[in-house]
């Protein structure tokens, strides 16, 4: 057994790369919020009610939480507490549907005086912890039916409640658990299947049926060719491939047709339009199309190096809605240009990569699985949020971690990250 290396200093047991990235991101966020709220609040002087001041305050609170998590709370507490916390959050998730306040069309917020928070933010943490806790139990096999059922329940229960709240964004974030399962041994075909199902679902709703048909055909041909080249050469395998492909074709056709049929004939118009809005297929009445156009104008007008800090005209006039929260990336794009955007995205990418790297390096399955959950969550937030502002994704309101204005999301992302920092520190200390 390796001797305890508890003599390693604090400095060396921490992954400073994660901490520095975190600090860089939150400070960038404050600058952007300061700039974006100029037009709305006016005046450069110090104003205790200004958004950037509030954000700084929340960063302070988050730092306190980070210190607590890293140095005070013993990491194994998370493994002990995760199940009760998971259940509690599930209860909160249901409660918010009944007692919560509606903000921006989804009833997923609790108001506690001046602070509004979303239980779904907590649920990302608890689900990740429970998932890691369950998957690290000895004897867990991802191919075993009972375990698959458990996994489906752990992820599915909060996901279904969140869907009921109308929080499409968080639901999409939940999809990132597929990457975790993939890493932990789930067949890659499941990822492909999920991807194909999403693409075909959208195609079946959005375009005439033949478009989805062509897409399905292309997928099947790709599947067939891939298996022919990489698969077994035995006769039985070949014959089975034909049969599997045929079965997939039938299943796919039924899926497309029933999706289309249910959507157009069973759902009532208001349900239909709700789905269309959620998927960004039609512009909602609040003008999601307008938002995207204005946000692209703001980002596009930044050019290579941007207009300079505080010089943005689009974001601070209020052309861009939600300029401090969901559309904060517009400020980056307009004032710092392509170079600024690239730097921010690469910083995020670095953070995610570093988390994956630390997760792989850990000998603790709990740390590894939790790390993958964390990375997947950040990745989805980055892709959906930035993708939305540049017209690649439907307008789904989720924050850009650490950058968007908002206390509860700042705190929950920080907590989520620093649990990982603490787990990594434990690994480094003891192994």
């Amino acid at each position, binding site marked *: 057994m390796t001797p305890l290396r508890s003599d390693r200093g604090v400095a060396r047991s921490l992954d400073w790369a994660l901490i520095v990235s975190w600090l860089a991101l939150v400070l960038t966020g404050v600058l952007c919020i300061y700039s974006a709220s*100029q*037009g709305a609040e*006016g005046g450069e002087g110090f104003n205790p009610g200004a958004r950037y001041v509030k954000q700084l305050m929340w960063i302070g609170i988050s730092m306190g939480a980070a210190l607590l998590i890293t140095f005070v709370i013993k990491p194994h507490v998370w493994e002990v507490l995760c199940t009760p916390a998971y259940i509690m959050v599930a209860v909160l998730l249901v409660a918010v549907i009944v007692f919560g306040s509606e903000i921006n069309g989804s009833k997923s917020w609790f108001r506690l005086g001046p602070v509004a928070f979303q239980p779904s933010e907590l649920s990302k943490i608890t689900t990740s912890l429970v998932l890691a806790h369950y998957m690290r139990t000895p004897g867990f096999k991802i191919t075993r039916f009972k375990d698959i059922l458990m996994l489906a329940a752990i992820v599915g229960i909060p996901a279904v409640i969140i869907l009921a709240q109308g929080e499409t964004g968080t639901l999409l974030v939940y999809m990132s658990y597929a*990457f975790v399962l*993939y*890493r*932990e*041994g789930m067949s890659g075909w499941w990822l492909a299947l999920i991807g194909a199902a999403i693409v075909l679902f959208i195609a079946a709703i959005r375009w005439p049926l033949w478009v989805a048909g062509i897409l399905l055909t292309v997928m099947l041909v790709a599947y067939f060719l891939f298996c022919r080249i990489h698969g077994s050469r035995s006769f039985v395998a070949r014959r089975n491939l034909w049969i599997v492909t045929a079965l997939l074709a039938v299943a796919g056709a039924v899926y497309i047709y029933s999706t289309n049929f249910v959507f157009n004939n069973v759902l009532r118009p208001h349900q239909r339009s709700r789905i269309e809005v959620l998927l960004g297929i039609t512009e909602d009445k609040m003008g999601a199309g307008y938002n995207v*156009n*204005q946000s*692209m*104008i*703001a*980002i*596009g*007008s*930044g*050019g*290579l190096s941007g*207009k300079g800090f*505080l*010089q*943005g*005209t*689009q974001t*601070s*006039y209020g*052309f861009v809605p939600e300029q401090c929260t969901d559309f904060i990336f517009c400020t980056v*794009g307009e004032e710092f*240009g*392509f170079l600024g*955007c*690239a730097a921010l*995205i*690469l910083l995020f*990418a670095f953070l*995610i*990569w570093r988390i*994956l790297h630390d997760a*792989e390096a850990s000998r603790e399955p709990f740390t590894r699985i939790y790390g993958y959950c964390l990375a997947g969550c950040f*990745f989805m937030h*980055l*892709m959906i949020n*930035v*993708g939305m502002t*540049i*017209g*690649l994704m439907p307008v789904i309101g989720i924050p850009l971690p650490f950058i968007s204005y908002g206390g509860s999301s700042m705190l929950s992302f920080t907590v989520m990250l620093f649990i990982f920092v603490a787990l990594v520190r434990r690994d480094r200390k003891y192994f």
Partner: protein
Amino acid sequence: MESRPRHTKLVIGLAVAVLILLGRLFYIQIINDRYKRDALNNSIVYETIYPPRGIIHDRNGEILVGNATSYDIMVTPREISSLDTLRLAEVLGVDMDFMREKLDYYRTYRSRIGFKTLTFIKNVDAATYMRFAEMEYLFPGFKGQVRTIRTHPFNAGGNLLGYISEVDGDYIRKHPEYRAGDDVGRTGLEAAREEDLRGSKGYHIYLRDSRNRVLTSYNNGEDDLLAVPGKDITTTIDAHLQQYGQQLMQNKKGSLIAIEPSTGEILAMVTSPGIDVDVLSDMGKNYAELAANPDKPMFNRPVQASYPPGSVFKLVNGLIGMQEGVLEPWMKYPCSKGYQYTSTRKLGCHSHKSPLDFDHAVMTSCNAYFCYVFKSILENPAYSSTKEAYDRWEQYVRSFGFGSPLGLDYPGELGGSVPKSSRYDKIYGKNHWRFTSVVSLSIGQGELLCTPLQIANLCATIANRGWYITPHIIKDSEDLSIDDKYREKHYTEVDAKHFEKAVKGMSMAVNGTVQDGATGTMARIPGVEVCGKTGTAENPHGADHSVFICFAPRENPQIAVAAYIENAGFGGTWACPIASLLAEKYLNGEIDESRKWVESRAMEANLMNVQKKEKKTQ
């Protein structure tokens, strides 16, 4: 171990996703410049430049309608925050009670007011406004508003000039070239000449900076569009004469019109009761009251009222008779207090000498004489039937401008009516009517209706001895040239030579003696030979209307006047002095000492509610 490649695959997936984001950013930020252009559009501010509305002058260059700036303080109660009421009261120079009252009102009715912007104080003076403008930022919710308003230096021609008001949603839908906040002429000249008066709007283009402050003029102002001021209009109205006419007509109901015969230019056109110019600039506030007034001050009587012309129409019948050759001026007809046209029915007349020739019949306004004249027109053997003779008569009458609108360059003109023979066919049966059926037409009663303007035009026609130019109130000017139809002479179908006889009769009516039966002696002006004709129009709704037309001087007439005063009795009593005073004022600039009493009597008379008196036609 299998996980290693999976880890690598996921990292590759991350890299691919990041590259997609960067590629898209590269495209919209660097390759495609559409977004930069749109951003420019977003930061450009268009500021509308409103052109000054055209000014309306009178014929002598006096300003009838001008422009002035008015400063209002507006408030949006919902936007008021942390208001220093004391400071604001000080800046605006109002007391705290006023502030409290206003703010209490806004609080009480806050749900009804909503986000509306209301006028806090109307029309503050320029100094107050400047003081407020400097400190406007201290009072969120309050803002200044500069408006251009119309001013009317003369209280003359309120109804003629009309008013402007802001366009409403309904108007904008019908006239898409207007925008909210634009003014449009609603009545009178403001409406008739809207297109000339309004000019065209321009704009400044500015760029905003990141704090929404206007920074600079875009492209050095090269793309700005200058406003084109509205065209000025010169009217044919004489402001002083119009004003004098209004004074004469105060407390009377009716019309007073003066035309320059040689040009057809309307010198004055008074409707009474009318609209004071004071209310024009704030019509919104006064509209309801005006509309509800039973005396209809917005009704433009000179061109919209229809009345029987009364005895002044005898001149037309006399002229037609001479033209047709059935009347010679020397012919005399008897009158025994009227004309017995059937065994039981008689058209009455007042007592005067009998028999009379044409001149004296005009002078005394003998009813019987003109019944004989009209009888000989309709029973003229040259025509096969009464109907045919009547049709010819109607044609003559229409050639004097009766029966249809004259074509005034002013909105809302009506045409009165000259009955067609078919109408009598309908009433009495085809060819079952004769002169006696339509005898009232002899003296300008019956089915014949005309506007006061047509009566004035008749006077101008006689003054011109047989022709008229369509009356108009826009004068030819550098800015605005008038249509050629306002230069064209319209000849009546009666030859010029016959008119001199009518003129002679009209001169005698004014300048003869009362003992001889002259009816218009009150119109006599020292040193000027006035020709006039009285009329007393019977009217089924009340007392007779008092009518008078006159022109002066007899040779080379400068002015033709018609006065039509509702329910004022004999033409010679009220219409006659009023019409002649207007002519005298125009010709001499002042009223002769000997006639001052006539003037004060006319101005002081209140004839608004005269009860019906004895019926008689003079």
